[in-house]
């Protein structure tokens, strides 16, 4: 593991989350370096979404600490929020606004200058292939289109960290490919990415970082080796 603490951007220590009396995450530790890509694997209910919600500051930890870019959660959440983009299960878009209006609204919330925001929206809408639909209402969009727009929303404010929760679910082949391309661009731009999935087929090329969650605990943290990992994954499932 190439985790030099100096260039660590995400530091998670002893992180636990309990819902009432149900433990969702237990004693999770890991560190991610700036610009690193990590695949978060795990079955449904293993705690992937909970972990991403905790990292994005939407949910508060029951115990343990999260540091992002040197800021501590939840005390310094406001500073962390500006550095994080989240693509959640649901698109987090307004149905009765157009694609462009949605981006303009979120741009305002992130305090982006109006002219600057228009420029960025134009570029992003081109990138995600929605330029021609920029002025149609989001309610008319397909699942794939919403997903692409929601990625544009998540990187509009140029966050250092991009968190994606099962972004491939419900996408057809072409949509999945264009998502792959978007992710590649985001990596080139130096963003740190955590992508959660329960499908092994979505795995990155060999050698990438992979984290496996099982029943709220980290079961594996290391380089991705397809055959070996598939075995680990199945073992964790059982």
């Amino acid at each position, binding site marked *: 593991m190439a985790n030099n603490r100096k260039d660590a951007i995400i530091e998670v220590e002893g992180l636990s989350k309990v*819902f*009432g*009396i*149900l433990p969702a995450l237990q004693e999770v530790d890991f560190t991610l370096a700036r610009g690193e890509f990590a695949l978060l694997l795990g079955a449904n209910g293993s705690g992937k979404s909970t972990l991403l919600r905790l990292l994005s500051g939407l949910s*508060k930890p029951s115990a343990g600490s999260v540091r992002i870019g040197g800021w501590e959660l939840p005390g310094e959440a406001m500073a962390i929020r500006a550095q994080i983009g989240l693509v959640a299960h649901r698109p987090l878009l307004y149905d009765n606004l157009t694609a462009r209006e949605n981006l303009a609204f979120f741009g305002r919330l992130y305090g982006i200058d109006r002219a600057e925001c228009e420029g960025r929206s134009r570029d992003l809408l081109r990138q995600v292939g929605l330029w021609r639909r920029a002025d149609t209402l989001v309610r008319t969009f397909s699942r794939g289109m919403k997903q692409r727009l929601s990625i544009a929303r998540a990187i509009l404010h140029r966050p250092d960290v991009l968190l994606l929760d099962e972004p491939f679910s419900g996408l057809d082949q072409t949509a999945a490919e264009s998502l792959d391309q978007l992710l590649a661009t985001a990596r080139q731009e130096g963003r740190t990415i955590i992508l959660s999935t329960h499908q092994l087929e979505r795995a990155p090329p060999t050698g990438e970082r992979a984290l496996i969650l099982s029943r709220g605990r980290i079961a594996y943290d290391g380089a991705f080796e397809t055959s070996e990992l598939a075995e680990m994954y199945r073992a964790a499932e059982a």
Partner: protein
Amino acid sequence: MTLATEFEARPMPRLLRILTILTVLGFAGTLVLGLVAAGTDIQQGAVQRLFYIHMPSFFGAFTAFGLTLLGGIMALAHKNEKWDKIALAGVEVGLAFALINLLTGSIWARPIWNTWWTWDPRLTSAAVMCLTYAAYLMLRAGIEDADRRRNFMSVYGIFAFVTVLITLFIIRIVPETIHPVIVGASPQNAQGSFEATSGVVMALVPSLLLWLTVMPITLMWHRYRLEERLESLNRVKLKALSD
């Protein structure tokens, strides 16, 4: 720890034991004072004796709802489940007291006002107070996530207390009530007032003190322990299921 030992009841603290005995004896004592020792009212007759429970029960509810308010504020400040349980206990005990208050008032009103119920400002606000805390319980039952439930109910408990204050002070705000005030000057429209003679005061003060302090705290403590038991039962159930 095995499942069985985890669910075993913890022994009742000594102080709670004392408080419980005090409540039972105190209640019996104040009943004797109100029903026997105090003289019969010349105009209203025996029904006036209800007053020795009617007014103290409102103040008991006041204490309990006040502790709900306090519990809510503390639960928000410290994110502590304990304070949330105190708040819940306050609502249930307070609601029971408030219903006793309405019921005794209603029975008293039948011969004195010649009706079980009238839409007088104070009666209305007392009824609304009960409904508010009934709404608290309904809202609470609808929230599954414990952290969210604690936050929501603390916030609601803070707003609900406004109805308690209104019931208490409405006579000053809306003077046309017919509800009498025994301590201090009655509103000019009040019907069924009686004088606070030394006999009345002698029976009232012990009862008031009992309902205001010992009784709500004792009952709430028992309710708090019951809630803890329910929680440990759930924990044991969960453990049994996951093993």
